[in-house]
């Protein structure tokens, strides 16, 4: 039996003052946050607090349409309706408007559940596992792994960009160049992917938007009807209220798509599916032969709703606002050092001590 001596590693032995000498020159360099070197195609604002896809082209249009339509409603229809009907109308409209805008901004600015890319060590370990299990012929080994989830066979695919086997229900978004957990779809109207962390905001957005457009549509129709009854007919009422006509047109065309989308997503939530799975028909082939092949469903519509929309809020896995270790650590040592877990996340003094060790090791 080998006589090994394992030396106690003292995790609290980091605060030795002698180590700070070599790194005084590092203090001059500003510590960079991780979002500044994030490999995906995303944009960050407010020092990493807000995350958006790089192409967020239609988000201003979405916001603009909502604000303009609601603004016209409050300015031109509400005064008439308040005097002729009730003061509740602008109140309800206001509440719905607030819900719509907050959910939209939350959907757009929240990390949808991006998985960070693997570090070199982990990627190498996975590669090794693939190579050992592959065939010895020239044919490259298949980059899929089959696992059993709730007695159902599920194939996990290997992601060449992120260098890992994608967890179940994870998909790689080509627009954002990220693997996103429970990937639903990339929504250009919202300017972000819809995934595990922001699906509830997205659902709340489309449902509240359905109510909001229906409400505005109903109120505008009531307004024009009342005017045409009291005045000289519908055509004159339309001519006198161009703002209402604009709102009518916008709402009429939006309602079909928004209501349809809300209905579709309600169905998805009830059966615990994602748009991605529904489009690909991942589980539909089993329907009829046995009960639904979806291994993730709780087989109860109410539980599916609660789990998807009211479940615990998962944390963001990409540490956007964490600090990077400064670049002048030699790469080999940097990989070994990583970041010891017992350091507080933003404790830069401790990190500088670590760099000191690294430098003294290689000196």
């Amino acid at each position: 039996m080998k006589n090994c001596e394992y030396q106690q590693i003292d995790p609290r032995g980091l605060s030795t003052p002698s180590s700070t000498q070599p790194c005084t020159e590092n203090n001059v360099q500003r510590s960079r946050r991780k979002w500044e070197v994030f490999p995906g195609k995303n944009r960050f604002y407010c020092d990493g607090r807000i995350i958006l896809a790089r192409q967020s082209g239609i988000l201003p249009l979405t916001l603009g349409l909502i604000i303009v339509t609601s603004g016209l409603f409050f300015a031109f229809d509400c005064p008439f309706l308040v005097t002729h009907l009730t003061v509740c109308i602008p109140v309800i409209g206001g509440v719905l408007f607030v819900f719509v805008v907050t959910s939209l901004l939350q959907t757009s600015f929240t990390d949808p559940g991006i998985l960070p890319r693997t570090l070199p060590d982990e990627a190498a370990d996975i590669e090794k596992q693939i190579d050992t299990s592959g065939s010895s012929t020239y044919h490259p080994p298949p980059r899929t792994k089959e696992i059993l989830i709730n007695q159902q066979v599920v194939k996990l695919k290997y992601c060449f960009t992120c260098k890992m086997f994608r967890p179940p229900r994870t998909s790689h978004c080509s627009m954002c160049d990220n693997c996103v957990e429970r990937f639903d779809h990339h929504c250009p109207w919202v300017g972000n992917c819809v995934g595990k962390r922001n699906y509830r905001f997205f659902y709340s957005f489309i449902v509240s938007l359905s109510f909001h457009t229906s409400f505005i549509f109903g109120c505008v129709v009531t307004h024009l009807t009342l005017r045409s009854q009291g005045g000289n007919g519908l055509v004159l009422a339309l001519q006198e209220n161009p703002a209402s006509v604009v709102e009518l047109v916008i709402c009429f065309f939006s309602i079909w798509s928004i209501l349809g989308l809300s209905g579709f997503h309600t169905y998805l939530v009830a059966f615990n599916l994602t748009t991605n799975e529904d489009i690909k028909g991942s589980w539909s082939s089993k329907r009829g032969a046995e009960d639904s092949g979806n291994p993730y469903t709780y087989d109860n519509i109410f539980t599916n709703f609660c789990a998807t929309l009211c479940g615990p809020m998962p944390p963001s896995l990409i540490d956007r606002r964490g600090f990077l270790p400064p670049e002048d650590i030699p790469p080999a040592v940097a990989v070994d050092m990583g970041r010891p877990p017992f350091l507080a996340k933003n404790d830069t003094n401790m990190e500088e001590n670590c760099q000191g060790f690294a430098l003294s090791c290689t000196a």
Partner: protein
Amino acid sequence: MAETHSLQDMRQQAAIAAKVFIQRDYTNGTVCQFQTKFPSELETRIDKQQFEETVRTLNNLYAEAEKLGGSSYLEGCLACLTAYTIFLCMETHYEKVLKKIAKFIQEQNDKIYAPRGLLLTDPIERGLRVVEVTIFEDRSLGR
């Protein structure tokens, strides 16, 4: 005879021999669970029961974080009613449990893994994909 040395001295002697990655266990769905299978590289370093106990406790903690129950539904409904603005000021249940997990891993490292030349990395630092166990080379000090 084994003595306690500061990490600085250790780093000069203890180089990383290998890293073992404990992968996720998806048999129960997408909940965060890790495989309790004991990796062969750790056979010489730590007791199998001890290691499995650590992973099992970690799994229980993550299950607690993701539990669907009265309190998580209440949090979800309250968040929905306030148009999700409470997430800006309140710490979620999941985040509270993550802090517990970080403390647990630190304790395990201090008491069990560091004396054996091993280091556990908190899975949150690896995107909740793996539990990374760093194995340090064993070198006896000649004094």
